C-alpha cells in the first residue's frame, strides 16, 4: 500500500505540475452546466458511504452527489458516478477525470495542500469491532492484552498511527479494501477491526448477533468532498449547496439521506439567528 501511495503521490505531483501549465482555464461550474451532468468520483464497496445495489451507486456519498445535481440542474438524477479506489480520489481530481470526489474523505492539512476541501458534510469517529463471544470482551480487555492483539484496518497513510492512539502496543495489519478487514476478523487473523463508527454500526446492523462493538470511540474527523484547487467559483457553488442542504432549504433531502444511512435524524436548523454563524 505504501508503494501505491508513493506512486499515486508522484502521479499527483506530475499531474499538478502538468496542469499548472496546460490547464490555466478552470471553470468547472460552467463546464458541468454545459455538459448537463455532474461527474462524481466515489467508491463502490464501502457501505453505508458508497456501494452498489442493483447496478446503481448508492450510499450517503452518492446522496451528496444527488444533492449537488439538484442544485445544478434542479434534477437529482443528473449525476454520473465514476468508480474509483480511495487512492485515486486526489489523482482523479487533478487529472480532471471527475468534477468532485465525495468518498468518505477525511479532511487533513496535508491533503488540503493538493485539493480544495468543501465544507464538511459528516463528522466521523473510529470504533473497534470484534467477534461476539471472542477472546476479548471489550476495549479494556483489548488494551490489557498489549502486543498480543492484532487490529485490522483499511490501508491509509495514518492507519497505524490512528490505531496506536487507542491501542499503543497492538499489532496493526492493513488491508486494501473494507471487506478484507472483516475477512481478517472472521478468519481470526485479527482480534479487532478499527473502522469508521458509521461503517461499524452498518455492519453490526446487517450481521445481527455475530459481532460486538468494543465500546470505545476516538479520532473524530470531518468528512468533506474535494474539488480541484484554483477553481474558487466551483468550490463556492458546492459549499453554498452543501451548506443549504445542511442548514437551509434543502435540509429535508439531506436529513432523509442521513436518516436512511445512519439510522438517526440530524438536528433540524432553527429559525431566527442563522445557524451557519454559530
Amino acid at each position, binding site marked *: 500500500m505504501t508503494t501505491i501511495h508513493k506512486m499515486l503521490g508522484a502521479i499527483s505531483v506530475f499531474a499538478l505540475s502538468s496542469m499548472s501549465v496546460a490547464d490555466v482555464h478552470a471553470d468547472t461550474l460552467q463546464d458541468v452546466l454545459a455538459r448537463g451532468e455532474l461527474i462524481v468520483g466515489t467508491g463502490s464497496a464501502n457501505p453505508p458511504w458508497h456501494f452498489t445495489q442493483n447496478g446503481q451507486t448508492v450510499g450517503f456519498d452518492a446522496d451528496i452527489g444527488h444533492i449537488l445535481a439538484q442544485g445544478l440542474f434542479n434534477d437529482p438524477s443528473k449525476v454520473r458516478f465514476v468508480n474509483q479506489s480511495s487512492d485515486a480520489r486526489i489523482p482523479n481530481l487533478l487529472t480532471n477525470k471527475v468534477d468532485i470526489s465525495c468518498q468518505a474523505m477525511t479532511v487533513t492539512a496535508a491533503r488540503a495542500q493538493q485539493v480544495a476541501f468543501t465544507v464538511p458534510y459528516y463528522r466521523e469517529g473510529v470504533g473497534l469491532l470484534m467477534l461476539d463471544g471472542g477472546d476479548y470482551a471489550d476495549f479494556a480487555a483489548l488494551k490489557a492484552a498489549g502486543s498480543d492483539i492484532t487490529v485490522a484496518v483499511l490501508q491509509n497513510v495514518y492507519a497505524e498511527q490512528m490505531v496506536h492512539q487507542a491501542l499503543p502496543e497492538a499489532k496493526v495489519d492493513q488491508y486494501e479494501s473494507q471487506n478484507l478487514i472483516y475477512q481478517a476478523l472472521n478468519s481470526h487473523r485479527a482480534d479487532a477491526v478499527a473502522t469508521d463508527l458509521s461503517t461499524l454500526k452498518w455492519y453490526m446492523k446487517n*450481521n445481527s448477533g455475530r459481532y460486538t462493538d468494543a465500546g470505545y470511540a476516538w479520532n473524530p474527523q470531518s468528512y468533506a468532498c474535494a474539488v480541484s484547487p484554483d477553481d474558487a467559483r466551483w468550490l463556492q457553488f458546492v459549499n453554498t449547496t452543501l451548506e443549504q442542504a445542511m442548514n437551509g432549504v434543502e435540509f429535508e433531502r439531506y436529513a432523509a439521506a442521513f436518516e436512511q444511512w445512519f439510522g438517526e435524524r440530524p438536528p433540524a436548523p432553527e429559525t431566527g439567528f442563522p445557524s451557519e454563524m454559530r
Partner: protein
Amino acid sequence: MQWDYFLNQVISHRDALLQGTAITIGVSLSAIVAGTLLGIAIGVAVTYGIKPLRWPARVYIDIIRGTPVLVLVLATFYISSAVGLDLGAFQAGVLALTLFCASHVGEILRGALQALPRGQIEAGRAIGLTFAGIFRHILFPQALRYALPTWITAAVEMVKASTLLSVIGVAELLLTTQQIISNNFLNMQFYLLAGLIYFLIDFAIEQVGRYVGRRLDRPARRTT
C-alpha cells in the same frame, strides 16, 4: 456456512457476476490479441531488424518487462490524461495490459526465432523467397511451436493482471466481487467463487493452447 443464503445471493447477483466476468474476459482477450500482434512485430524487430528498429524494440522490451503492471496501469490512466489523451478506465487498462503483453510476447518470440538454425533463412533465400515469405512460411511456423507454451503462460498472466484494473475503477470480476460482498458480507464464499471463475478462464486458455499445440505437432498432410 450459509449455503442457501449464498446460493440465493449468487442468483440475485448473477447479472453483476456475469458482467464482471465478461469485462475480465474482454480486457484480457483484447490485451492478449493486441499485445500478441504488437509483440510479434517487436520480436521480429529485435531479432532481424536494422539497428534503428532493433534498439528501440530492445529498450521497449527491457523497460516494460521491468516495470510492475500496477505502475503501468496507473501511468497509462493518469499520464494519458495529463498529456491530453482522454482514455477511459477500460481503454487505459487494456492499453496498459497490451503494452505489458507485447513486451513479453516480443521476448518470447525473440527466443524462439533465435533457436532456429540460421541456415534456414539462407535456404529460403536460395529458393527465391523474400524475407516476408521466409518468415511466414519457414520461421514463424517453427518458432510458434517453441513459443506456444510460454505464450500460454503470458496469456494466463494477463488474466491475473486484469485484477489490477480495479485500482482505476474498472469493474472487472474482482471489484464486482467486492461490490457484491459489500452488500451481503459473504466474504469467503464470494472470493472462492471468484477464484473458481478465474481458474475456469485460465483453464480454458490452457486447453486452447494445448489444442493448438497438438495441431502444430501433427505431421503436415502429404499432398502427393
